[in-house]
């Protein structure tokens, strides 16, 4: 037994170091996504209740737009909907909903009351989500007119965050 007596302490030290490291990361998740500054990964996906043609980022080239990954099984996504709608209206920028690993019926039901999305595309197997590095819903990306990802927000958007963080970015991009 004596040989193992240090084990709990060492295991705890490793855990604490790791938590410290992830804490540093958590503080900085607001900006660094490997995607920032890179072209938005291309996709062609079926749309929910939209035009029958599939949609891809190319359809919006020349416009600033927001990509929001969501699902009906994600409670914070629900809370975020009114905020997104407001943001889209205020900035005059379309929001594309990436419906991640969801069922169309469930998705449709959730959007009956508030629907901030100009287009909703169905990423039923989550493959596009993978390209965008989605690991927890909701996640929000801002894509500029040249199709470059300029900003990423992880987690539900609060009104303050939308106003103080995303809106300035959108205004700046629109001004160019």
């Amino acid at each position, binding site marked *: 037994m004596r040989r193992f007596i240090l084990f709990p302490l060492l295991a705890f030290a490793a855990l604490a170091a790791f938590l410290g490291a992830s804490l540093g990361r958590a503080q900085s998740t607001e900006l660094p996504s490997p995607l920032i500054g890179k072209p938005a990964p291309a996709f062609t996906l079926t749309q929910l209740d939209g035009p029958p043609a599939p949609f891809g980022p190319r359809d919006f080239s020349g416009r600033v737009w927001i990509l929001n990954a969501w699902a009906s099984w994600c*409670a914070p996504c629900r809370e975020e909907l009114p905020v997104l709608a407001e943001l889209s209206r205020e900035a005059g920028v379309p929001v594309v909903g990436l419906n991640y690993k969801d069922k169309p019926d469930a998705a449709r039901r959730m959007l009956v009351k508030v629907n901030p999305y100009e287009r909703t595309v169905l990423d039923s197997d989550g493959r596009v989500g993978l390209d965008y590095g989605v690991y927890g819903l909701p996640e929000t990306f801002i894509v500029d007119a040249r199709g470059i990802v300029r900003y990423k927000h992880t987690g539900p958007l609060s009104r303050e965050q939308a106003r103080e963080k995303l809106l300035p970015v959108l205004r700046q991009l629109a001004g160019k």
Partner: protein
Amino acid sequence: MIPELGHFALLLALLLAAVQATLPLAGTWRGPARWMALARPTALLQAAFVGLAFAALLWSFAQADFTVAYVTRNANTQLPLAFRLAAAWGGHEGSLLLWALILAGWSGAVALCSRTLPADTVARVLGVMGWISVGFLAFLIFTSNPFERQLPGAPDGNDLNPLLQDAGMIFHPPLLYMGYVGFAVAFAFAVAALIEGRLDHTWIRWMRPWTLVAWAFLTLGILLGSFWAYYELGWGGWWFWDAVENASFMPWLVGTALLHSLAVAENRDAFKRWTLLLAILAFALSLLGTFLVRSGVLSSVHAFASDPQRGLAILALLAVLIGGALTLYAWRAPGLESGSRFGWRSREAALLLNNLLLCVAAGSILLGTLYPLALETLGAGRISVGPPYFESVFVPLMVPLLALLGLGPWLHWKHVRGAELWRRVRWVAAGSVVFAGAVALTWQTSAGTALGLLLAAWIGAATVAQHLGQWRPGQPGATQRWRTFTGAHWGMVTAHLGMAVFVAGATLVSGSGATEDVSLRVGDSATLRDHVFTLRRVEDARGPNYIAARAVFDVAEGEGAPTLQLQPERRFYTVQQMPMTEAAIDRGFTRDLYVSLGERLPDGRWVVRLQLKPFMGWVWSGALLIALGGFAAALDRRYRRLKLPQAFPLPLGEGQGEGPPTASPLPHRPLTPTLSPAGRGSSLP
């Protein structure tokens, strides 16, 4: 004025905690011995001042004082008074203050109930608790002051998150914290024993009721949280393996292991170092849970209040308290004698296996909770770990544990004769197999459900049979034997039976429920397993801070006339602009009917989810019985008569609480009473 008083009370409490953390400990070491006497008064005064601060916060909420920033963020004038008071712990600052209050309360309780302990022991235990208090109060005051003013005040507040506006949510955090923080007492005892470098078995006996009470509260807290998720989130699920749920479940598992190892340590003088380690780990996991929930490193379905800046402060606290305790452990534990030996076929070994299974289960949950974070920190990509992982890891660990749970109380300490054991349990085992097989065949269940039923039947039958075997009703002396059953014994029987009920409920509800998503016009009907649901009308309803659509369903069984009316609501909370589903549930002994109202479709139909949850009530009543068992065992008389030996180094039993012999008299019997292990069960997801 009142908020400032609260703030001031907190500062005084911090100073008192600092005195409590230093002088008594110094007194036990080199300083004047009378410094030790400071432990009790400072702990009690600290409790009084934290209580005053909490009262001040409640007052600010009751008065709807919107010059206090925290009140503005979490309450609203339209919010009913009960919820406005409960909103005091609806956000980060208030939750922490509640944490500190409960910690101060436990310290005060230790100060009051420790008259029979030697002064230096009390000084050490309260000193260690003082360190925890200093950490939390400093954290509260310097990073999360709930009394911060904002001038000019807001005209009205933001309202409480509608999900939290519920009676279950009023009581869930306090109960959960009672459990989390209660483990601080066991932790303080363990650390005090390590400082002293001595651990005799009276100490362990002293730790037991505290651990039991904390554990029982934690059980209730988890139960209430799960119950709330079941009826309030509107999905009909009751356990999601969400990071926050895992954070409360891990200390529960380790706490369960601790209870069982305390039983061995008390009765057989074994497992001593291991018990100390478990006591440290149980509290470490409670703190880790607080860290995970409060720091925002994990995004969770219900992370209501999180902030990465504060995470660092909690991490530092965790590092100092737990790192310190484990360093002390590594340094001092080798000096503690390891206790008596036992064979591999004995109750000790069975409880060791129980401990191992519980700890491995807690470890795998920890791994699953932190794994996505770890991968990401290493830059190895992103994954999400969900219920499939937890179920496939947790259930196989629980199956042997549950099988062992039925068997455990039959085992003798020190050595078990296999043939005799088999002769005693074979009819119970055969009966459970026949019963579970018959039920499984009648209901055409899956193999997994059949296994769950078999385990539940085995635990229930084995527990009852073992109890009857000790009591031997109808034979001479049954009345006397009945009287000799201890609280610990009743606690064990109750909790183990609760486990049987819980396992049966959890198995059936996850194995054979039914769900139907339909969209209905007024007048339409939908059928779910013989129950016909007819949507009679949808009316407008109005609450204090929400507007709602209320659907009225008539429910009939088969062709018969409606026997029941269910009224689910779809609410819209006006201040937070948040829609919410308020499910209608008809609870029954064998099934719950669960109706939640969804959106209204453009063509006027309503989206409705109908669910039939078989034996759902058994899950709750099982968990309730488990918690009751914990309280019953804590009330055992021998803990109240506990006296420390003055002259003898060996603790002497008072003959109280002697359980009837479990079998033929054992050759070895310690001087202290032998009793059935006051063991608890474990849990299925």
